């Protein structure tokens, strides 16, 4: 082999090797976008999701793009919306990305956000979108969990949770806590029956302000079972806690997030790159496998443990009803469960 042939071959094989990487990098944005994002060097990420979970996402993103620092501000849904509105009104919105679990709170703010769509926009299910500017970066689903040390005869369905034998053993997140819980109670009334709440309330569940403290109570044994977001309790199971989780056969309520880039973003390219990556197959696969999310991609690249796509029936709320029924139904729920406003 002469030198020229060797060089050609070497270059060719190097090019072949580099191709997949190149192609994958393109998946997240044009070379110009990536260069511009790297030049910006950072972005500010407002999220209503749990900081610890998002920390893992940021860590993986930084493996691919170590030049871009992601600074996170995490607040519960209601507080986050107030902060965004107030900052925006004062002309001091710091966020480059706003990521929220309640689409009904985000949609009225649509005008704050710039036009944005990820490269794989066509792959996303229309059910998950409430605006062309807001994307389901995370999609989370409800499940039922129980403490294996305490429950020897576990529930197998939503209806089982109303059994008299589980009296004073269950927990619930209260209806007014936010978009994800609202999705669940809407599902309960529309799918499991008008009397499901009353039956559930008859077992005297302990009411929690959000899923995370309830998950912790479940692990500690304060309660023995209850509906929980899969991604919240999955972290515990992964760490070895005595819990079991399943997707009930009657249906699984799904809550897609709404995530967008404000018009005022001072690091718009870094924000786009981060969102492109989160919404890409790679980002979504990671969130499914490691965080216990689902995905709103029409063809999911992966499923969480124990999720059989042939059996599990996903349930997306009708967004019109999601907005219109909220106040009246939450008031009904409060009355049924004796939750005082």
């Amino acid at each position: 082999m002469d030198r020229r042939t060797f060089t050609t071959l070497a270059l060719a094989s190097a090019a072949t090797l580099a191709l997949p990487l190149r192609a994958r990098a393109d998946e997240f944005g044009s070379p110009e976008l990536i260069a511009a994002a790297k030049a910006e060097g950072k972005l500010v990420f407002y999220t209503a999701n749990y900081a610890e979970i998002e920390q893992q996402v940021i860590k993986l993103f930084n493996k691919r793009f170590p030049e871009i620092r992601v600074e996170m501000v995490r607040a519960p849904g209601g507080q986050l919306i107030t902060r965004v509105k107030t900052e925006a009104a004062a002309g001091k919105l710091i966020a480059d990305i706003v990521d929220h679990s309640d689409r009904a709170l985000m949609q009225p703010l649509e005008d704050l956000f710039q036009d944005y769509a990820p490269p794989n926009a066509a792959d996303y299910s229309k059910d998950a979108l409430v605006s062309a500017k807001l994307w389901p970066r995370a999609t989370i689903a409800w499940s039922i969990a129980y403490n294996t040390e305490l429950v020897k005869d576990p529930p197998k369905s939503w209806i089982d949770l109303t059994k008299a034998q589980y009296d004073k053993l269950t927990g619930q997140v209260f209806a007014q806590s936010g978009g994800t819980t609202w999705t669940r109670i809407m599902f309960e009334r529309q799918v499991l029956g008008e009397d499901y709440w009353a039956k559930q309330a008859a077992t005297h569940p302990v009411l929690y302000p959000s899923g995370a403290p309830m998950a912790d109570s479940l692990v500690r044994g304060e309660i023995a079972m209850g509906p929980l977001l899969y991604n919240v309790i999955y972290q515990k199971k992964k760490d070895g806690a005595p819990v079991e989780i399943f997707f009930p056969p009657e249906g699984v309520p799904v809550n897609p997030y709404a995530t967008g880039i404000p018009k005022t973003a001072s690091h718009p390219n870094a924000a786009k790159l981060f969102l492109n990556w989160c919404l890409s197959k790679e980002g979504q696969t990671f969130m499914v496998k490691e965080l216990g999310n689902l995905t709103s991609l029409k063809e999911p690249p992966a499923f969480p443990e124990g999720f059989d796509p042939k059996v599990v029936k996903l349930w997306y709320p009708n967004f019109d009803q999601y907005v219109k029924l909220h106040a009246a139904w939450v008031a009904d729920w409060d009355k049924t469960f004796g939750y005082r406003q």
Partner: protein
Amino acid sequence: MHGQADRRSEAMRSASEGTRRRAFTGLWVAALLAILSFLVIYPVFMLLLGALTDTNPVVDGIRLSLSHLSVANFLAVLANPNVGEALLNTLIACGGGTLIAVAIGLLFSWIVVRTNTPFKGFIAAASILPLFAPPLVAGVAWAILGSPKTGLINTMFKWMGSDLRIDLYSMWGLVFVFGIYYAPYVYMFTSSALRNMDPSLEEAAEISGASAFATLFTVTFPLIMPAIVSGMLLSFIVMLGIYGIPAVLGAPTNLNVLTTYIFKLTNWSPPLYNTAAAVAIILMVVTGLLVYLQQKLLSGRSYTTVAGKAFRPRSLDLGPWRWLTFALGVVYLLVVVVLPSLALIVAAFRKFMFIRDAASLFDMRQYSLMHFESIFDNPLTMRSIYNAVEVGVITAVVGGALAFAIGYTIHRTRVAGRGAIDLISTLPVAIPGLVVGVAYLWAWIGVPGGLYGTIWILALAFIARFMPDTVKALSTSFLQIHRELEEAAWVCGRGMLGTIATIVLPLARPGVLASMTLLFVLAIRELGSSLFLYTSNTMVMSVLLLDYYEGGNVGKTAAFSLVQTVLLGVLIGGANWLSRGSAQRSAARTG
């Protein structure tokens, strides 16, 4: 001729000095009022505006908000029976808690300052440890200990074969935890007053034949009444504003107090800030009444006990009884410090908090460093520690200086406008942190010069929020210093500032240091008002701690709060050691 001219020029000089002094005083009061307006009045105005409208003053503009004024929020809140119930629960919990706190705090300040109880220094140092733990952490620790289902205390009772069970998820639990948690507050007030008190009055009582017990109740305690009342009132008010403890202990049985109710309102989706502001105003009215009551109780009496006479605080020889007081100290430490710390240590090192029985509690395979590894793996941890210390130092120094200026103006001068200063500086005590956070955000986000997003906006919020605590803590020191000492300095030709520097400051130093320390601790712990003001660069420890808690991770919450407690302990121990050094130096100088 000459004599006449001299007299005339002297008269002119003193007249111009008088004018200068008046101008200076006027400027001084105006400056204080301007600072207070920015720190207090403006945010409170925003809060009132929020309570009286259904708008967000920043989003909808102040003008629109002003045109939408109505009392609808108040009517809705007042007509809601749950608010009434929450208010009643609040008053019971805080009232009961205050009684316990005063009983314990007073007893221990007397034991530590006035008796020869063995190891009293150690008891003193350990007894203020609960102050370092944020209320949320205290709540979590006591939930781990006292839950009716999974509590460690009940687990141990079961193991010992006893049928005894405790349940802290109740009103009694709330009262108990409030009481022991805020005893150090009362202790801090009363111990510095006892330390500064001239013992000759007690000696006089004893010489006249009063027993030690009678002396305690007829001389000692009445003399330090301002400190007792201040400590009592402050602990009551602080309990009114606490969220963490009732949130953890009250939630499982749906036991609501005003703060948990307000938190619910702000955390609902969509959040109801305007209603929350209205509830907060009710809380302010309750507090306002209490402050008024305190002023009424204390006015028209003299509590001067520090005068120009030398004295040495004496300690009472208790004889064999000192072992009883020692035992009391040990029990107190065990309940207030050791048990909750153990609960936190177990939670921080144990992989999961499911504890089947006593054997499982001691199963070492269940323990690991995983929570610590995980928190230090998080880059936010170190940044939040750094930020929190920075904010704490700024708050303590600037807030301490401001509180000194305010306290001196209120208590040691007769300038016009000091009543207003007193009133305004007391106002923030009444506003619960969560709501005041929004008020600060509404008020200060538009301030030109980019205050928002810096560490200073947090520090300013803390200075404003804790001004009443600091001013009240200092007031007791001011009230005790007799005017004759300052007059002596004036007679010797010192000006006002000179008198402050050479007389007031050194004498009030224990109080000043104590209040700055208190401010530092409060600033590091403060959560409610931080929530709205921090940004990605200025994340502080308390916010990260709430993240861990809300993330449903008792293990990491416990691990991080241990880190915070150790950090505070080291910093405050260090500060104490430094100040003791300087005290010795100044003693050597004057000696």
